[in-house]
């Protein structure tokens, strides 16, 4: 390549890399003259709990309230008594206060308050002669039902395969669930609400349970064989496909002609259309129309919550759980969904970026110090790797793709590989030069001799990344990120850095200085 062409190409390359670095990592700022804010690609990341915080919510069984709520209610009723006019009004207020005081009791070892309503069968309260509660104990039935419900709910979150989540029992009889911030608030709320459902699975037509499930021995698993999440319209719409057993197919055959079409539902103007409804207790969670039933009596369901793949996956997990675990004689009420900042420090992400920035700067400077202008090629390779991986992490959003500390590790590992392979190539070129060859022959020979070594290294690295795809939760996400890092690093070492080196070397005036080579006879001349 001619010198002029090389210089032009070098300049263009530098400009392109500089612009892409700006897009990738330049800090946010308000665009002058507008109300809009510029955000770099690194700000688009979905972050794990350690780096981005998350959401949490409390599940309280019906009849169980936290101490703060009991305290507030009591304070309000006491205030009402104090401010009521003497006489009937005050008596009424006092009665309300007394009623409330006896409506809830605490048990040993818990700060929660439990309803003493016999219908809920949560506690057995011991009262004194005046009817005031002296002590209370949890009923064995409530204990068993709660423990079973906790197990089922925990399994649901495990099945959702979050890389980072937490389910804990609070004071023995409430649940607190944490999810990472990678979910947006709407999706997180949908998951938290869905997984709190504890009603029995049933199929109803016109508000009545179908005949096949009326028998007390009948089970929905007798009708449903298998479920899977599928997509259509190029992945834009997801649905749950249910395959029925022979008995289930017979059931569908018997009723499908009486069901309405989904188009009828849209035109119904509020009048009732006949559907086969999937119920969780008394709550309808999906409807089956005539056109949802396929020719082989499989059914495609679009759940009430949404047609996004995430929602449908959540729905599938809920359905599987309902079929496997059955009904729990307990209903959970959700507290408010709260967002929380990264634990340990609000600034953990900023500090991490600073540390990575310093590390990347070192990897830009050290090769130049060690390898001369060939080190400059390594610097371009480093920046190219940074740009490609950072943009891929920001804009590839298949499923849960959150950036975590594992992402930092695999990013650094790929970066180290890029620079070490460049160093390996440099050493090979130097060995060729020391054997007496010209610079051009040394470069050719060095690249030729290291080609298969570099290929071997990246084949092994790719094998690790692909093997990790069998991992679950965060390991699966880590595997996807590892594939991106390995493929990018391989491309850079095998092709991109060679091209940059070729361009720079063509433009270089002194090829010896380019590689920091000194030949013995040159030293003697001096």
């Amino acid at each position, binding site marked *: 390549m001619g010198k002029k062409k090389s210089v032009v190409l070098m300049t263009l390359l530098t400009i392109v890399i500089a612009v892409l670095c700006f897009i990738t990592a330049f800090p946010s700022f308000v665009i002058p003259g507008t109300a809009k804010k510029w955000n770099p690609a690194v700000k688009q990341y979905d972050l794990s709990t*350690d780096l981005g915080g998350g959401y949490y919510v409390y599940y309280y069984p019906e009849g169980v309230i936290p101490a703060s709520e009991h305290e507030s209610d009591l304070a309000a009723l006491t205030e009402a008594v104090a401010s009521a006019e003497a006489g009937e009004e005050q008596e009424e207020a006092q009665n309300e206060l007394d009623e409330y005081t006896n409506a809830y009791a605490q048990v040993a070892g818990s700060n929660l308050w439990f309803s003493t309503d016999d219908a809920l069968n949560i506690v057995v309260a011991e009262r004194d002669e005046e009817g005031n509660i002296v002590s209370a104990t949890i009923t064995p039935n409530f204990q068993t039902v709660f423990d079973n419900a906790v197990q089922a709910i925990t399994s649901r979150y495990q099945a959702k395969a979050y890389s980072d989540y937490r*389910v804990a029992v609070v004071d023995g009889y409430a649940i607190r669930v944490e999810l990472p911030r990678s979910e947006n608030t709407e999706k997180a709320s949908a998951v938290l609400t869905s997984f709190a459902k504890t009603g029995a699975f049933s199929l109803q037509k016109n508000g009545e349970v179908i005949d096949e499930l009326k028998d007390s021995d009948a089970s929905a698993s007798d009708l449903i064989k298998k479920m899977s999440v599928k997509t259509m319209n190029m992945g834009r719409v997801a649905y749950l496909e249910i395959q029925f057993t022979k008995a289930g197919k017979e059931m569908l055959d018997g009723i499908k002609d009486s069901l309405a079409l989904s188009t009828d539902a849209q035109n119904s103007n509020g009048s009732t259309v006949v559907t086969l409804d999937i119920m969780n207790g008394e709550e309808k969670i999906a409807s089956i129309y005539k056109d949802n039933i396929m020719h082989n009596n499989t059914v495609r369901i679009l759940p009430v919550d949404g047609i996004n793949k995430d929602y449908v996956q959540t729905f599938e997990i809920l359905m599987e759980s309902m079929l496997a675990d059955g009904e729990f004689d307990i209903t959970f009420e959700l507290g408010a969904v709260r*967002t929380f900042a990264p634990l340990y420090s609000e600034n953990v992400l900023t500090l991490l970026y600073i540390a990575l920035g310093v*590390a990347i700067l*070192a990897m830009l400077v050290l090769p130049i110090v060690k390898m001369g202008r060939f080190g400059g090629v390594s610097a371009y390779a480093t920046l190219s790797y940074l740009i490609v991986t950072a943009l891929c992490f920001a804009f590839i959003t298949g499923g849960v793709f959150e950036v975590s500390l594992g992402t930092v590790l695999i990013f650094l590992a790929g970066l180290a590989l890029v620079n070490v392979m460049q160093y390996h190539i440099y050493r090979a070129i130097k060995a060729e030069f020391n054997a007496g060859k010209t610079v051009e022959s040394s470069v050719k020979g060095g690249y030729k001799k290291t080609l298969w070594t570099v290929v071997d290294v990246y084949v092994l*690295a790719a094998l690790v990344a692909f*093997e990790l795809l069998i991992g679950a939760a965060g390991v699966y996400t*880590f595997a996807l990120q590892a594939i991106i890092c390995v493929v990018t690093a391989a491309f850079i070492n095998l092709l991109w850095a060679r091209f940059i080196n070729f361009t720079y070397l063509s433009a270089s005036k002194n090829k010896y200085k380019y590689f920091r080579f000194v030949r013995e006879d040159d030293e003697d001349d001096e």
Partner: protein
Amino acid sequence: MMNKLLTKTTKKLTLLCLVMVVIVALATVFTAIFGVNTATRMNDQTTVTVKMSAFYYRDETKREAVEKVCENAFKDLDVKYVYESQMSGDDCELMYVFDKDANVETAKEALKTAFAAKNQDGTLVYDGAFITVESAKETVQTVIAPATIVRTAVAVVAFAVLAFVYTWIRRGLWNAITTAAGIAATAIMTVALILLVRIPVTATVLYACVVAPLFAAVFAILGVNNLVADESADSVEEKIVNAVAVKETLATVAVLGGALVLVGAIATWAVRWFALCSLIGLLVSAAVVLFVVPALQLPLLDKQAKLAAERNKSGYVGAKKANEEIAD
């Protein structure tokens, strides 16, 4: 200097194996006695939640005043971390997390008293905050799912097998054995050291356990390729010592190790454990490839050389070469 060290350690396979076995045994015993050390967030906890109105929480000055009261009340207790949480509604909360056995009742009552304090004119000091304080004990239901650990272990084993097959195809059986052995030794030693050092086990530990074998495989294959390309060495031992990818291995340790030390030094505790874990994995992979793999290669390549010599002695050169000789 490195070559001298490698020349010595190459002959010490038994000793190196003994060291590894001792470390693994110690780690097993420690884990059996003390259990696995899990991260604070994955342990049972005691919490104290201070709830206040959203308007109070979002005012920085007012919130800092509340946080100061809390810090004062908890000064004799060990606060692990704090959830600073908001909701789009009426109240926000600060949840202070302690060890499960922490006694927080005194601190809780002190907070209640402090937040109920009144001014001289009878108005509340924290008027408008509507602060409530409550404590709770949490029993965690989830740790890293066993399935995640099992699948990761299976992935590492599968990688070792595939690396063995690939290296066998590329560089022969003996090199494949040493590469696979290097990967296995790295994975086992990394896990053992993490358990021995009692690093809190979280999902991020799995990442370190996976990246370490990757580096072992990379350094090992660099060495194997050098070994195959070296035609000038006099003896098998010299060949093995010269082939070890010392500079590349040490350069990776320096570069990546430096980055991890920096990350651990600058960032917070959550990140420090992760950085330490990753550093252990990196150092183990380097040590295995620099010392254990060459020590394993020596007897294997000696055996290979003996087998080759016996074949040459018998005069059998293989059918293809025999036909060529006949043709000549």
